[in-house]
């Protein structure tokens, strides 16, 4: 049986082409302009992997980050995150931060502290591609998460199990891999892990320093010891591997693939970036089963469209549009985050997606620059315009029926370049293919 994570080797029959570059950029980023995509095709697989995971990319500008945090305003923080994703300085890191935001789903609706939310996301930027041990410990001390899961009221006298339960169920192990006794003991270990003035604070007098028993071992564990113990569990490796494959490969990953990736993860020293890099260069990632196997989230749809066009737009408006489509960053619907997949699309949400794009391309919202006509400039025939639009948004991969439909749209609006471009691009973006990532 072949290794599902064996590296993909481009061949003349299976070349590294625009479709594969588009696939890589969609999953490990929010897409890129046609110019960049073509450059990456010319540069080859290694260049493309370096593009999505640049080794020397700086962390987000600290001055701008400080300004975004200083506002203390949810909309501003949200828009700043959109701005970061639009910049595409480190596409995989930006996507990973979004992934971790859904994984350690924390909502400002409860904590009412956009600063704390912004700092949590900055932690994802800093540690989201590092060792999972470090990320998990940082999350166990994250003020927003501690308050979200009520750990700031978890005391030796009145333990609160909420944080400990979600730590096992949602963050590390998954259901069925821990006992109620484990939850109780872990909750004791996290007593006194509180928040003061927006920062983590260990309150010794509220901490239960007694002996605990967890996963069959005994000791006077504190929260750090629990975090260190849980990441070593094999179930944790499998749990995380499954989540990463759902994100990068297929919504329903093959158990054998999960097992293989869990091994890679453990061998890497639980290094997230190295594990994801292994997935991204694998045959599995570029397989036919992975291609367009996922429904785009609102973020992928909204930000991806702007990035594919190589355009600029107002992040505040885009963030609001995403929220309207069901993905309000910093306000996930529950501790389980966004369910994603088919939950993203319904007749109503498809209509909302269509309306958003129509408004964006017509200049009614979002301050899109340049005007749509720019992208189809110099092309006169409806056929050429339809092909160019498919190249821009679908990496040139669309059925003949789609092409013909687009030609009809281009023909109908032939008199006005901007309107024609807006109509054709809108039509492409409303196709079923474009809803798939």
């Amino acid at each position, binding site marked *: 049986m072949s290794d599902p994570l064996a590296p993909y080797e481009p061949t003349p029959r299976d070349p590294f082409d625009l479709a594969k570059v588009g696939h890589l950029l969609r999953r490990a980023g929010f897409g890129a302009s046609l110019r960049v995509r073509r450059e990456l095709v010319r540069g080859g697989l290694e260049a493309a992997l370096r593009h999505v995971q640049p080794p020397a990319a700086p962390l987000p500008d600290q001055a701008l980050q400080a*300004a975004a945090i*200083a506002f203390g305003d949810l909309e501003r923080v949200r828009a700043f995150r959109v*701005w970061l994703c639009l910049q595409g300085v480190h596409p995989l890191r930006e996507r990973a931060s979004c992934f971790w935001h859904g994984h350690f789903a924390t909502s400002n609706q409860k904590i009412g502290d956009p600063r704390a939310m912004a700092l949590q996301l900055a932690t994802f930027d800093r540690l989201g591609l590092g060792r999972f041990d470090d990320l998990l410990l940082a999350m166990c001390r994250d003020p927003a998460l501690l308050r979200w899961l009520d750990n700031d009221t978890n005391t030796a006298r009145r333990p609160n199990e909420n944080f400990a339960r979600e730590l096992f169920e949602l963050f590390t192990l998954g259901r069925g891999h821990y006992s109620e006794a484990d939850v109780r003991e872990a909750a004791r270990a996290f007593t006194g892990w509180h928040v003061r*003035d*927006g920062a983590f604070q260990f309150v010794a007098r509220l901490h239960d320093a007694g002996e605990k028993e967890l996963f069959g071992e005994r000791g006077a564990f504190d929260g750090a010891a629990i975090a260190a113990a849980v990441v070593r569990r094999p179930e944790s490796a499998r749990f995380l591997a499954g989540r990463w494959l759902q994100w990068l490969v297929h919504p329903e990953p093959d158990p054998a693939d999960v097992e293989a990736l869990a091994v890679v993860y453990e061998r890497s020293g639980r290094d997230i970036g190295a594990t994801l890099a292994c997935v991204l260069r694998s045959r599995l990632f570029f397989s036919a089963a992975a291609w367009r196997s996922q429904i785009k989230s609102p973020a992928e749809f909204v930000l991806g469209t702007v990035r594919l066009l190589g355009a600029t*737009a107002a992040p505040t*408006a885009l963030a609001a549009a995403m929220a309207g489509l069901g993905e309000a960053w910093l306000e996930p619907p529950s501790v389980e985050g966004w369910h994603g997949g088919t939950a993203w699309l319904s007749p109503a949400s498809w209509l909302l997606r269509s309306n958003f794009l129509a408004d964006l391309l017509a200049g009614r919202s979002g301050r*899109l620059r340049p005007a749509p006509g720019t992208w189809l400039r110099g092309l006169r025939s409806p056929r050429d315009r339809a092909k160019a639009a498919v190249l821009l948004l679908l990496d040139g991969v669309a059925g003949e029926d789609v092409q013909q439909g687009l030609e009809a749209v281009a023909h109908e609006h032939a008199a006005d370049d901007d309107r024609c471009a807006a109509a054709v691009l809108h039509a492409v973006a409303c196709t079923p293919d474009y809803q798939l990532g």
Partner: protein
Amino acid sequence: MVLNCCPLLAVSTLLAPGAAAQGGPALLAAVPDAAVVVAAARAPASAVAALGAWLEPLPPGLPPEVVGQIGAGLAAVRAALGGATTDWVHQFAAGGAVAAWVPGPGGGWQWLVVTEPADATAAAAFCRARLPTVPCRVDGGRLHWGTCTAPAGGRWAASPLAAAAASPGVVGAVDLAALRQRFAGNWSLPTGAAQVVFAPVVHALAQAAWLQVGLTAVGDRLQVTATADASLRSTAFGALLADGDPPGVAWPEAAIAGLRLDRSLRRLLAEPASFLPPEGVQAVAAFLSIADALDGPRTSFVDDLLGGLHEPITLLALPAAAADADEAGPITLPAFAAVAGVRDQRAVDLALRTAQLLATIANAERAQRGEAPFAVRRRRDELGHGLIAEAPPWRGPGLPPPDRQLSPTVWAAGGRLAVASTTAAALAACAAEAAPAGGRGGDQFVLRGRALAAALAASRPALELARMLDEGEDRGEAQRFFAVLERVAAALDVLEVRLEVEAATTRLEVLAERWR
């Protein structure tokens, strides 16, 4: 292109330098009766010279690319005029000029410029060369140029503008009745708080027959006035206007901005049904149901608190106190204060009790969020007495959040009560000089350019980020925007807007004074 540049040419004609003359009033007889907006200049030369003297030199420190764009624009204008500006003006408007805008078919506009040129033949040749499709004729030494060929029956020579046309600078008039007819159904009235704030202006625009406008520049001062022949003083809304209370606070020299609205908040809240639509009345009732409960059932927010103060209330924006360099974050909040004279000392006690309760509620909410409470204490000294809430020392990650710059204060001193976002602002508001006795009333807004520029500079990183996020600009564009705004503000000493509602007229005055 033709349609775009014609209004510019029309205005340029009015402002163009040339020999002083008396042609303005007489030229009004040539304006079509159908005109809705008319502007006139008796002596375009002196008007434009004064305006140029006010505008120049450009504010120093503008980004080079902006200075370059302005230079290119001026060069383009010179090219369009076909040579030196002075020659062009002499040809065009040596003896005065009027410009008129007339509603055209299909919702468009037509325009007409009538001047007394020095060289009518040359002026007409210029017009025909630049805009060959626009009718141009010379009649009795006057140049008639424009897309409007409607007849002139003398309506404008007998209009209120005729009396003003001999004034220096540029004057104008708008036939509001005709304008309303033109835009019937295409405008919406303000709602909510804007309804109260803009009521005099809305009433004037809705009821007046004429709006007369004047533009003059003298030295560093540029003045724009607009007077409408209607007033809401005699309407039910007039009861909200000032009723002879003592003058309020003079604008402190250090203030960034000040606003005083000539409205009685007490009357508005006491009789909302007289001034507001049903939804506004409901909003007032909802607000008072809480405000009246704050100090228990025996005191009334309207009668005891607002009734114990002199109205109108003055609002001030003041510079932030100099921050510790180590703690200077990306946002430096200016301070805000509301101040009014005290009519009844019991209002001060009520305000202090209410502030104490609000501070307790705010601290409880902070505690729920795991935030340290503000330290609330009473203070009494030789300056006055009041309640001060001070932010606790910041022990969290990164720079302190902007709310640590706040020290909400209610302060009574010198017969005044101030509610402010910082103690320094409250003290400054109470200590400000009184407005001169017998001074003009009405709505007043004052903006001090250099103070605004300093406030913008103090929060530049955050402001630039906000623009990047809201407008989709890149960092360079956002930096350039605020660089220009800051330099333009710094070149302005003071901008003052005043709205006076007289018995029969409503007068808006805008005064901008340069700082050089």
